[in-house]
C-alpha cells in the first residue's frame, strides 16, 4: 500500500506566491478577453437587460404564500438529483458487481445493459424510455393508482421527500430515467474499482480464512472506495446536470421552470443566466463535498 504525504496547509498561499511573469501575462489576457466579450455582447446583441425585474420575478411568492415558483423548480431538481443518485448508486453497484462476477448468468445481462445505455445518446434514451417503457411499466406494476390518481392527504414526511402528489408520476419517471442512465456509468466505475485491486489482496484475504463478508468489508471495499471516489464524484456532478435533460419530457424541475418563466416574461437571458448560476452553485458545492469525502476515504492510507 502506498503512503501519501500529509497535505500542506498553506498550499493556497504558496500557489499565489509562485505567480511568475508568464502567469501574469496570461491572466491579463484572460481579463482582456472577458472585457472584450462583454463589450461585444453589449453592442452586438440588441438586448435590454432587466436584472432587477428578473430577480423580482424569481422571488415573488405565489398567491397562497408558499415557495416562489422558481424555488419549487429548484427543490424539484434537488429531489430528482437525490433520488436519482440513490437509485444510480444502488443499481450501478449491483450491476458493477454482476459485471465482475464469474457467473455468466449475471455478467451478460449487466454487460448488455451497460452497452445499451452507454451507446445511446442520453436524450434519445430518455425519449424512448419515457414514452414507450415508462408508459407501459407504470400501469403494469400497478403504480398507476398510487402515482397518477393518488388524491389522499399527505403527511409532512411524504411531502418533504416526494413533493406534491400530482407530480409523483412526473418525479418517478424523471428519477427512473436519470437513475438508469447514470447507473450504467457507475457500474463501470465500480467494476474498474474492483478490478484495480491486485489479485494478491484477494488471495491474502482468502488465505487468512476471512469469511466472504469480512473479505469485502475489511479488505476489498475500503480500497475500492478510495479508488472510485474521484470518478464517482464526477458522475454525481454530471447526474445533477443531466437532470436538466429531463425538462424535455416535461419533468417540472429547474430547467423546465426556467423555460416557462423565460417564455412568459420575455426576460430570456436573465432567467437563463440565473438558472446557469444556480446549477453552478449546486455542482460546485457537490464537488467540494466530494473533495472532503475523498480525503476521508484516504484516511487509512495516511500516516498521522
Amino acid at each position, binding site marked *: 500500500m502506498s503512503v501519501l504525504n500529509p497535505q500542506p496547509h498553506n498550499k493556497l498561499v504558496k500557489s499565489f506566491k509562485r505567480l511568475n511573469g508568464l502567469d501574469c501575462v496570461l491572466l491579463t489576457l484572460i481579463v482582456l478577453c472577458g472585457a472584450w466579450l462583454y463589450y461585444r455582447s453589449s453592442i452586438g446583441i*440588441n438586448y435590454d437587460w432587466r436584472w432587477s425585474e428578473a430577480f423580482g420575478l424569481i422571488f415573488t411568492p405565489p398567491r397562497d404564500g408558499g415557495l416562489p415558483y422558481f424555488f419549487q423548480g429548484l427543490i424539484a431538481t434537488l429531489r430528482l438529483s437525490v433520488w436519482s443518485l440513490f437509485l444510480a448508486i444502488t443499481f450501478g453497484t449491483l450491476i458493477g458487481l454482476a459485471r465482475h462476477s464469474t457467473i455468466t448468468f449475471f455478467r451478460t445481462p449487466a454487460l448488455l445493459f451497460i452497452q445499451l445505455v452507454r451507446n445511446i445518446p442520453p436524450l434519445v434514451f430518455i425519449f424512448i424510455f419515457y414514452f414507450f417503457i415508462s408508459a407501459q411499466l407504470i400501469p403494469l406494476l400497478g403504480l398507476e393508482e398510487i402515482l397518477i390518481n393518488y388524491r389522499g392527504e399527505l403527511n409532512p414526511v411524504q411531502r418533504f421527500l416526494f413533493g406534491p402528489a400530482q407530480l409523483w408520476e412526473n418525479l418517478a419517471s424523471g428519477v427512473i430515467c436519470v437513475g438508469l442512465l447514470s447507473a450504467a456509468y457507475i457500474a463501470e466505475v465500480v467494476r474498474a474499482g474492483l478490478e484495480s485491486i491486485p489479485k494478491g489482496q484477494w488471495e491474502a484475504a482468502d488465505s487468512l480464512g476471512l469469511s466472504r463478508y469480512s473479505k469485502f468489508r475489511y479488505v476489498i471495499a475500503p480500497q475500492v472506495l478510495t479508488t472510485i471516489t474521484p470518478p464517482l464524484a464526477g458522475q454525481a456532478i454530471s447526474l445533477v446536470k443531466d437532470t436538466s435533460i429531463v*425538462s424535455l*419530457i416535461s419533468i417540472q424541475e429547474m430547467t423546465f421552470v426556467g423555460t416557462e418563466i423565460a417564455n*412568459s*416574461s420575455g426576460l*430570456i437571458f436573465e432567467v437563463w443566466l440565473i438558472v446557469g448560476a444556480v446549477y453552478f452553485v449546486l455542482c460546485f458545492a457537490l464537488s467540494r463535498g466530494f473533495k472532503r469525502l475523498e480525503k476521508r476515504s484516504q484516511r487509512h492510507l495516511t500516516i498521522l
Partner: protein
Amino acid sequence: MKLFKTAITALLALAVSIPTLAADTPNLDKINERGTLRVGMSTFVPWAMRDKQGELVGFEIDVAKRLAKDSGWEVEFVPTAWDGIIPSLLSKKFDVIIGGMSITEARAKSVLFSAPYSHSGVQLAANRELAKGYTEISDFNSRRVKIAARRGAFTVQVARETFPKAKVLQFDDDAQAFQEVINGNAHAVIASSPKPEHESIKNSETLFIPFSERLSKGNEAFAVRLGETDKAEFFNQWIQARTQDGWLQERYEYWFATLDWQDQIAQGQ
C-alpha cells in the same frame, strides 16, 4: 333447427351489443370517475403563461377552467414541452391537449381534433434595416432571406409554404426567434398573431409589419387520442355552446386584442 339458429344469432347479437351499449362513453367516464380533467398545455404567450406569482394564466387556461367548471370537474394542468406534447397525450399523461394547437393534416393522423374553438392567424414581423422596402410576399421569397420561427410549430409550415426559397431558422421558443430578428441576424420572424403586432409596437425602432393581411388563418382545436370519439363529441358540444353565447369570442378578444393582462406578467413580451 331454424328456431335454434335464430335464437343463437339473436343471443350472439345481444352479447356483442351489450358491451358497446354499456361502454358508450368509456373515455369520458374515466374523467368523471376521477373528477379531474388533466389538461396538457405548453407555455406560449398569450395562450398560456406564468404570471408574476408563477400561476398559469392565458386564453387556454380560461378555456380549460371554464370547460371543467361547466362539466363539474376539477382541472389540473400538465405543463409539457411543446416537442413532446403529442407523444405525452398518446402515452396518457393527460386527457386532452388544450394548447393552441392548430389543426393540420399531419397532426390529424396521430390525434383526434375537436371542432375549432379559436381562429388565429400567422403574421410576419421584419427587421427595418435588413428588410427595407420589402412590401410584397415575393420580396421575402429569396435565397438571401432568413426567416425565424418556433420549431415544430405551425408557423414553420407556413414559412416553408409561403417562402419556399427563404432559409427558415428554427428556435425553441418565440422569444428567441424575435430576438434573432431584433439582433439583425434574420430578416423576419413568423409567429401567431398578435405576437408580431405586439412586438413591432414594443420594438418599433427595429421591427415593422410589412403586410396588412395575415399570412394564414389557423384553426385551433382540442386534441384527444384517436378513437376517443365520445370525448371529442362532448367537447364539441361545449365548444358549440360557448361559441354561441359569445364567451369564447369575448375571452379571445381579451387575450389577443387587448393588453389589459400585461401587468399580470412581468412587463410582457
